[in-house]
């Protein structure tokens, strides 16, 4: 195979090949928050909990934890409350996490010790670092057992003033000690900097790297090590969703000696930082970090005993997803991520078998996927012939068109009548903007029109007639076999007239109704989509204006409440309705509180219900409250619930045990490759075609031959002949 992009030595090796398009910005578990980074980081570090790979709805299970954490709810006087207690009475929640003994870290130079047990690579001089270019240049590595203190150390890092953890403010609401710790660290950091400027020495103990803050010297009230393998955290109030956070890298362990190792002078200059070389106990370790070209994960030789799950959801056994039940993981030795900036080479390399999996972009959608007349999705014949499989799933996300409720036109004025008219206007627009059509035209059907903020699969989201948005849809057919059908434009016009804008004109002044969409280039402002929206508004007689601005200005408008209608999205952090319904919670208002409620929606009843619902355990009582909250939103229509995006992913037939699920990100350890099948397919699909080389040579010869003949004729021409041809020949000179 002449076009094989990988080294010949890797042929037949147990390696998974995939690609990445955006370089990861952070791999420090305290900072990393994006999907691009999660692809790498979740394979390397291990929080105490993880999502079950196969079960749906998503279920948490222990990862490094020795069983699910114990939760104790206490009232203001310290008395323990039952799990069903009213969340308002819960003053504190105590969570105790016990870690499985015997878990080892990946081999790393930070753990290497001398014969006397001292760290081998601490206090390194400039001379000792001179030849060091990467971690592989440290001759010795070591490991040690994972202990509870490593988790506590990482939780303290959330408050580190130089690390800018994105969840610090959120966590500080539940862990007030974090603010105190940050103040203390900030003061220490400033004092350290001042001493360094004055040249009066460093703040830390002798031998500590300059500028390094030893977090073990700072207390974090509410977080403590109970014993070698147990740690405890005390949260303010009731926050059951905290367990979901315990499945994210923010709460994965960071050993103090690793932090200290990377803090040494000369390390950062060599790009040797924890932000680029995360250290963990996970199934893989990062062995090559070149975000411009490729990132490589290799099997962690010290990985704990971990076996493939034996339970899943219905259909998993038939899909072969339980065939490896009980087998030791990980199955794959190495994962190679190659950087592909452009979609065309990425797609072609997937078709050649050089990438094991690929997404489906708009460019290759028609080649990969066929839509039936009923709207069903299937693979194209070409893809099926190659044994490629299509995996689809609904993402736990919502894209919406938000109305700025502070805008007098769409949010309503101070009087009840004005608010009511604005509500009718929002309802009319919600009906008129046909999201089924939008998804079909602009997303190739890769989205589910939204009925509420809750995507399917999240507790509280109802299916069928019970989940229908009655303002926008009506049910057609029986309860079992029927389907929601969008109300027609006549209904939208009726609502518009009730709002005081019959046929899109002010009932009193006759002024036309103008709706402004604030957007960013590449967003809804793009021509075709704007034209589509304009047409829908035109059907109502409403004028539609697109106000495109760059992303930063757009964010400013949202923050200052200067937008009218805007397009936004939210990707849930965890599969709980609280993480979606809070986007419309009054105290989250963007303008007043700089929260996540970009529509600045406020409804006292909704807010009160949210406060009750957020800490309740899943069950009929919670469902009832959610139903009421959703009904309020559907009536008030602060958002047009546009769609929940669907994820389409392709994989070759030789990739086994792959299951989609946006919440499960530590997926590499579960996957397996049928190597023989991959090698055979690659060989068959990439047979070199050599005859074109001969053809090119012939063509070149055909081009050169007349030139050579011509040249020889001229060079051997006599003066008389040359004179006759002089008007066209070189001897005539200067013919142009």
């Amino acid at each position, binding site marked *: 195979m002449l076009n094989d992009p990988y080294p010949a030595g890797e042929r037949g090796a147990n390696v998974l090949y995939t690609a990445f398009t955006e370089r990861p910005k952070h791999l420090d578990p305290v900072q990393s928050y994006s999907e691009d980074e999660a692809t790498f980081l979740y394979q390397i570090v291990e929080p105490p909990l993880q999502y079950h790979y196969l079960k749906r709805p998503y279920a948490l299970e222990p990862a490094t934890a020795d069983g699910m954490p114990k939760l104790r709810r206490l009232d203001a006087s310290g008395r323990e409350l039952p799990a069903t207690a009213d969340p308002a009475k819960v003053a504190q929640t105590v969570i105790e996490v016990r870690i499985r003994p015997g878990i080892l870290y990946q081999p790393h130079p930070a753990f290497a010790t001398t014969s006397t047990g001292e760290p081998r690579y601490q206090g390194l001089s400039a001379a000792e670092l001179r030849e060091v270019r990467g971690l592989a240049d440290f001759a010795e590595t070591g490991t040690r057992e994972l202990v509870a203190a490593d988790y506590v150390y990482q939780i303290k890092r959330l408050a580190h003033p130089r690390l800018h953890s994105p969840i610090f403010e959120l966590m500080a609401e539940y862990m007030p000690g974090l603010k105190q710790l940050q103040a203390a660290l900030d003061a220490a950091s400033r004092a350290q900097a001042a001493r360094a400027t004055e040249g009066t020495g460093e703040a830390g103990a002798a031998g500590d790297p300059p500028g390094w803050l030893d977090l073990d010297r700072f207390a974090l009230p509410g977080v403590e090590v109970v014993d070698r393998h147990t740690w405890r955290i005390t949260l303010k109030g009731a926050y059951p969703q905290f367990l979901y956070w315990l499945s994210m890298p923010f709460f994965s362990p960071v050993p103090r000696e690793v932090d200290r190792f990377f803090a040494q002078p000369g390390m950062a200059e060599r790009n040797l930082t924890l932000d680029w070389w995360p250290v963990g106990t996970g199934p893989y370790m990062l062995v090559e970090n070149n975000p411009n070209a490729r990132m490589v994960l290799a099997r962690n030789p010290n990985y704990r005993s971990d076996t493939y799950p034996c339970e899943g959801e219905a259909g998993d056994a038939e899909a072969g997803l339980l065939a490896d039940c009980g087998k030791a993981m990980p199955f794959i030795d190495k994962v190679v991520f190659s950087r592909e900036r452009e979609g065309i080479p990425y797609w072609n390399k997937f078709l050649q078998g050089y990438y094991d999996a690929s997404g489906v972009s708009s460019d290759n959608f028609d080649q990969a996927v066929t839509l039936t007349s009923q709207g069903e999705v299937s693979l194209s014949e070409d893809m099926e012939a190659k044994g490629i499989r299509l995996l689809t799933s609904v993402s736990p996300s919502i894209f919406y068109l938000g109305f700025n409720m502070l805008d007098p036109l769409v949010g309503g004025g101070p009087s009840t009548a004005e608010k009511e008219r604005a509500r009718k206007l929002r309802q009319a627009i919600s009906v008129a903007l046909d999201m089924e059509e939008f998804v079909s035209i602009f997303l190739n059907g890769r989205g589910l029109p939204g009925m509420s903020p809750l995507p399917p699969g999240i507790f509280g989201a109802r299916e069928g007639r019970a989940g229908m948005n009655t303002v926008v849809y009506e049910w057609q057919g029986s309860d079992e076999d029927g389907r929601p059908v969008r109300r027609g434009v006549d209904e939208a016009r009726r609502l518009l007239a009730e709002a005081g804008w019959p046929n899109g004109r002010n009932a009193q002044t006759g002024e036309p109704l103008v709706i402004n969409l604030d957007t960013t280039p590449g967003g809804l402002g793009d021509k075709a989509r704007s034209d589509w929206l304009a047409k829908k508004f035109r059907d109502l007689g409403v004028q539609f204006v697109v106000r495109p601005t760059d992303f930063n200005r757009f964010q400013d408008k949202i923050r200052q409440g200067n937008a009218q209608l805007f397009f936004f999205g939210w990707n849930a952090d965890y599969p709980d309705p609280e993480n979606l319904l809070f986007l419309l919670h009054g105290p989250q208002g963007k303008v007043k509180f700089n929260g996540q409620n970009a529509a600045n929606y406020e409804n006292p009843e909704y807010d009160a219900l949210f406060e009750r619902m957020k800490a309740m355990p899943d069950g009929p009582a919670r469902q009832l409250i959610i139903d009421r909250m959703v009904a309020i939103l559907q009536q008030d229509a602060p958002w047009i619930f546009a769609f929940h995006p669907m994820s389409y992913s392709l994989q070759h037939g030789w990739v086994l045990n792959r299951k989609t699920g946006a919440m499960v990100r530590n997926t590499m350890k579960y996957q397996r490759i049928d190597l023989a099948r991959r090698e055979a397919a690659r060989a068959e699909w990439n047979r070199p075609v050599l005859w074109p080389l001969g053809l090119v040579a012939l063509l070149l010869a055909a081009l050169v031959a007349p030139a050579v003949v*011509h040249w020889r004729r001229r060079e051997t021409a006599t003066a008389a002949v040359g004179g006759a041809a002089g008007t066209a020949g070189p001897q005539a000179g200067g013919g142009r």
Partner: protein
Amino acid sequence: MLAYLLRRVLYAIPILIGVNLLTFVLFFVVNSPDDMARMHIGVKRATPEAIERWKVERGYDKPMFVNAEAAGSARFTDTIFFDKSLRMFALEFGRADDGRDIGQEIRDRMGPSLAIALPTFVLSLIVSISFALLLVFFRATYLDFWGVVLCVAMMSISSLFYIIGGQWLVSKLWALVPISGYAPGLDAARFLLLPVLISVVAGIGSSARWYRTIFLEEISKDYVRTARAKGLSELAVLFRHVLRNALIPILTGVVVVIPLLFMGSLLVESFFAIPGLGSYTIDAINAQDFAVVRAMVFIGSVLYIIGLILTDISYTLVDPRVRLE
């Protein structure tokens, strides 16, 4: 000549300050330090406190050009512009927003960029000049006519077409070389073959036409007639005399780009996944990483100035009549 060179180097300093100032102004017209912080921390849960802390840590909490609260020279030195610009002249580029050392990054990426740019440059020059000379040799014949037509056709086609078509034909259909990727050392050759070939082919049309025009200008001069009268073959006249005398306009366009070869090619590097410098600036603009944008613009300016000085020097080498005074 030394005085001339010294003068040019001194001229370069205000030019570089001007370029730096312009980059600074243009960047901060569309990005505020708050935007940079938000981009760095992430939009999802960025709070005003976190943004403020980020700015203080990176020195973006200071005024842009004039610090009204400071006294004396600190009014101008205790500013973002001074703080971020001065060290550039000592080639200290600092760190990118993602924490990576910019100097190290540039050193790492320079090799792959040169690996593709250098052979492309040399081969393009050889092929285009030879082709142009042949067209001149066959001027006013059907070979010249169709050659020019071919050049016009080739220069009319977008380079994107050459890249996508080349990848599809050579890598996908014929499976002769990898579609994209890069490997260090000698193994790089199989990854570079196609991008270099495509870059050379894509550039022939416009360069050959330009060189042909230059050569046709030369060929009507008296020394050419004299050379022919001496009985030299036409090939000897073209390659030995015309080429040498046409070097001044060729060098004007060619030498200036030699230092810029370090900067790489955005399109080719992007499509062929070559980890060079070409895409570094674009990545930085997308990430609103001012440190990298500023460093890359500064280096580009320095290299361009070096290219212009080298061009001047090259004139003296090919034409003894030229004196740099």
